[in-house]
């Protein structure tokens, strides 16, 4: 039982990814990931840092399945929450409609979805925007919605790509408190950022350099 509890919720082993640039007759392949490996256990808050262009977002997109990998292996849990760097939302739909669509996608029952939605609106403090369209929201509130959609099905692993861009100080603090609560409940959290100021909160930090992850 103890072994099961400690087994990682995310294992990335030797993942490779390259992109082709330029026209077909002058195609140039750029290797972004050259065998990246990392691990996140349940209840761990793990950071992934690296310079701009080091491949952090690429690795995140490979883990979540937005990009196909060229090589390597991965194990990911069934319930995965993904908060992308740029909010992937529909400008003309309301906050409530976003929650409805994602509740269907996650296979949640109606009451369960409403309870999760209301809890997140309260926790992140943007309940009054429920009827607003995304195009009417500030950047910070969009980011809150982006994060709430990743959390509403109570994932086993939460992947956060530069999650607090656009947050004010109060929301930033609230974000970390929320991350700590989720971690205490046993959720594994991987945070990607070019700058992690809250290092003391993290279980472990990896640096992505030359396409590989190094534990700091």
């Amino acid at each position, binding site marked *: 039982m103890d072994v099961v509890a400690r087994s990682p919720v995310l294992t990335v082993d030797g993942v490779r990814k390259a992109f082709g640039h330029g026209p077909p007759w002058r195609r140039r392949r750029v290797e972004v990931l050259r065998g990246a490996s990392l691990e996140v256990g349940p209840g761990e808050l793990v950071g992934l840092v690296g310079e701009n262009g080091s491949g952090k977002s690429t690795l995140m997109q490979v883990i*979540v*399945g*937005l*990009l*196909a990998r060229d090589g390597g292996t991965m194990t990911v849990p069934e319930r995965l929450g*993904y908060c*992308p760097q*740029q909010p*992937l*939302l*529909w400008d*003309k*739909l309301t906050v409530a*409609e976003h929650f*409805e*669509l*994602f509740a*269907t*996608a*996650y*296979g949640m029952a109606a009451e369960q979805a409403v309870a999760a939605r209301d809890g997140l609106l309260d926790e992140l403090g943007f309940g009054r925007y429920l009827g607003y*369209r995304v195009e009417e929201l500030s950047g910070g509130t969009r980011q809150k919605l982006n994060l709430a*959609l990743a959390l509403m099905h109570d994932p086993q692993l939460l992947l956060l790509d530069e999650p607090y861009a656009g947050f004010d100080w109060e929301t930033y603090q609230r974000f970390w408190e929320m991350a700590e609560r989720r971690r205490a409940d046993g959720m594994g959290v991987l945070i990607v950022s070019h700058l992690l100021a809250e290092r003391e909160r993290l279980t472990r930090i990896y640096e992505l350099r030359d396409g590989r992850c190094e534990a700091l």
Partner: protein
Amino acid sequence: MTRTVVFAREQLRASFTLALLVAIPALFVVSAARVLSDFASALGGSLAGDAAVALSAGWAAAFVSGALGFFQAASSRGADRRLALAGLGPARVAASRIAASVLLAVVAAAAAFAALVLRVEVAHPWHAAVAVIAFALLYLAIGVLVGAVIAAPLEGSLLVVFVFLLDAFGGPGMSGGSAPPWAISQKAADILIAAGMGAGSPTGDWVKLALVTVGALAASFCVFVASARSRA
């Protein structure tokens, strides 16, 4: 069903979309028929009178549906992909997208057809209605295909208009020669012109139109599936 309605609502919330969906087809039918027959006679074609009015309804529905298809495909790729990843899967996201697009295309076609029957007496109204819807669905597919390749609104819209112009001026009745083989709307135009002139259409034309329309919708579905899938 809920997703389809939400996606359709998303499109209709864009400024003026609902107004344009109805106004453009109606205005086009009212104003473009004479222009079409003038162009046809200049190009050596035979299009004139009620046949020109009937054909203008098809082109009106096509124009609006092409633009709608383009924006459906180009504007929501990232969010659709995220929704598919969240557990819905590319096929179900694509099915909702195509259903929402078809719903809007049918609204545009209905507006064009209503303008047509108000303007002239059509001897075969059901033939005309089916042909106008086919025009809308064919151009919906063209818009979706363009939107899959080009995301930029200006360039994408221009390409849809370019295809529209090539197809319109190379189509039946517009020039002395026969329509080029790549004229996707040829059979829809043939049926619509015949309906406008009070004639029926041979079974072969209906079969070909059905095949082209189903093929176009299948291609649109595949494009939406590909857009909602992981990238290589």
